[in-house]
């Protein structure tokens, strides 16, 4: 009994790492330019499909294709921000919401057109099934462990980037006061494009790992967005650790729900999200300034 629950919690924590990874890009973009990207989940999925294409055309293992997917997605993010999203900023919250909602519809339909509605999977022989035996009744998959470690590293890397580098300093300054940074020679629009490229790189990693973990279909994007959004709200905006912790809490809640009843998993996750929104709307780990 105890072992089963331990197992549930551990699997939930590991799944939560992936949610945290989903959420970091969303949190980053909101933090820097106050934009909520409704197409976030669809672009994560697009990353998985790009890896699928590399796999089918060049026979690349998903992890071998990962650097290429990251580069392609970062470029797409940069161009998308320069060409489209920058024009929606500075006019309130609504224009970016509408435009990214439209992008979400476009991406979903392009994926349907190109790949049909059938489920796909990124094949990574052996890697995703091997597990580490921890005691008699507890086994942890190497792959979920690796995903969790990658999410941790990602949070650490972002924290370092924002706290210690000149680029991160400029991003924080831009987020604080986008008019004054321009007086100091910072090109605001370029900073936004670079931030979006970074977010898309993170989303590409999340997408490839998602595709290796489960099968995926063109209409899965909004669910990814929802988990990312819930993780951000639970964790509280402002720190990448909070976002990561929010992902872990969501993952554990879902795992506990599934353990209680296979139909309850996502529902329990949503309840935890709603409870946080009701009782601690600033999130569990808000930025302390």
């Amino acid at each position, binding site marked *: 009994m105890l072992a089963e629950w331990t197992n549930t919690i551990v699997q939930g924590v590991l799944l939560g790492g992936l949610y945290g990874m989903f959420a970091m890009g969303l949190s980053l973009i909101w933090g820097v330019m106050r934009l909520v990207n409704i197409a976030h989940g669809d672009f994560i999925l697009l990353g998985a499909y790009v890896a699928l294409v590399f796999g089918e055309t060049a026979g690349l293992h998903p992890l071998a294709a990962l650097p290429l997917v990251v580069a392609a997605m970062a470029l797409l993010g940069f161009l998308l921000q320069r060409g489209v999203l920058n024009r929606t900023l500075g006019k309130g919250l609504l224009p970016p919401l509408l435009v990214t909602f439209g992008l979400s519809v476009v991406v979903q339909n392009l994926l349907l057109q190109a790949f049909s509605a059938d489920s796909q999977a990124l094949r990574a022989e052996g890697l995703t099934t091997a597990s580490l035996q921890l005691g008699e009744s507890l086994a942890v998959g190497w792959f979920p462990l690796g995903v969790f470690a990658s999410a941790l590293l990602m949070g650490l890397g972002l924290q370092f980037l924002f706290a210690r580098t000149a680029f991160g300093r400029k991003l924080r300054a831009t987020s604080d006061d986008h008019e004054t940074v321009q*007086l100091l020679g910072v090109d605001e629009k370029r900073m936004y494009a670079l931030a979006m490229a970074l977010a898309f790189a993170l989303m590409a990693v999340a997408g490839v790992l998602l595709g290796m973990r489960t099968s995926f279909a063109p209409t899965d994007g909004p669910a990814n967005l929802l988990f990312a959004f819930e993780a951000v709200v639970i964790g509280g905006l402002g720190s990448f650790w909070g976002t990561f912790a929010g992902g872990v809490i969501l993952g554990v809640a879902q795992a506990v729900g599934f353990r209680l009843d296979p139909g309850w998993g996502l529902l329990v996750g949503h309840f935890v999200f709603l409870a946080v929104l009701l009782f601690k709307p600033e999130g569990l780990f808000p930025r302390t300034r």
Partner: protein
Amino acid sequence: MTLVSTHALTAFYGDFQALFGVDFELDEGEIAAVIGANGAGKSTFLRSIAGANSADAGAVRLAGAPVGGLGAPRMARLGVSLVPEGRRLFPSLSVEENLQVGRSTGRVGPWTLERVYRLFPRLEERRAAPALQLSGGEQQMAAIGRALMGNPRLLLCDELSLGLAPVVIKSIYETIPQLAREGVTLVIVEQDIGIALGVAQRVTCLQHGRVSLSGAPAGLTREQISAAYFGH
């Protein structure tokens, strides 16, 4: 040599026309004061030179080249820095980080963290503090230091004295001639005429968006200035 000039500069503050054909000229290494009542267009004038307000290309010239309407980031990289009204430090950055952002112009020159700290020793003591924990005077020093970190040729200062105690204003204005000796050309916008005339070699008075008086402070009488300021 003329470093900066404006030629029939017109500018808008929102939908409201704030400047009506302002002509202005300043030689390299000089200090100019721009004075005038509230709403005379002083801040808009500085922002137009700094690229933060749109202007016709030929209406603003830097070392002879037309630079009007290039936008603030490009003007900063050309060596025009504005210390904005109200300091506008970045709240989530420390004092030192605020100064470091000033380096974003990519210009090389004499100004480094060490030089700014030598100019304002108080800032070095408070380098790790969040910017908004500083006193008003210290914040003003940080805002000036941040602009200097970009190694500007032309430094535009908007209402440095705003909300500060007289003794603090005095100590900040003591650094202004020092900056000029380092080769920085300055335009100072001030409400306080006494302070402005004390440091400047040239003074320009704006009234309702037009130049009502200009010249060397020594050659102007109190009556002339008062008339230009209040418009009798």
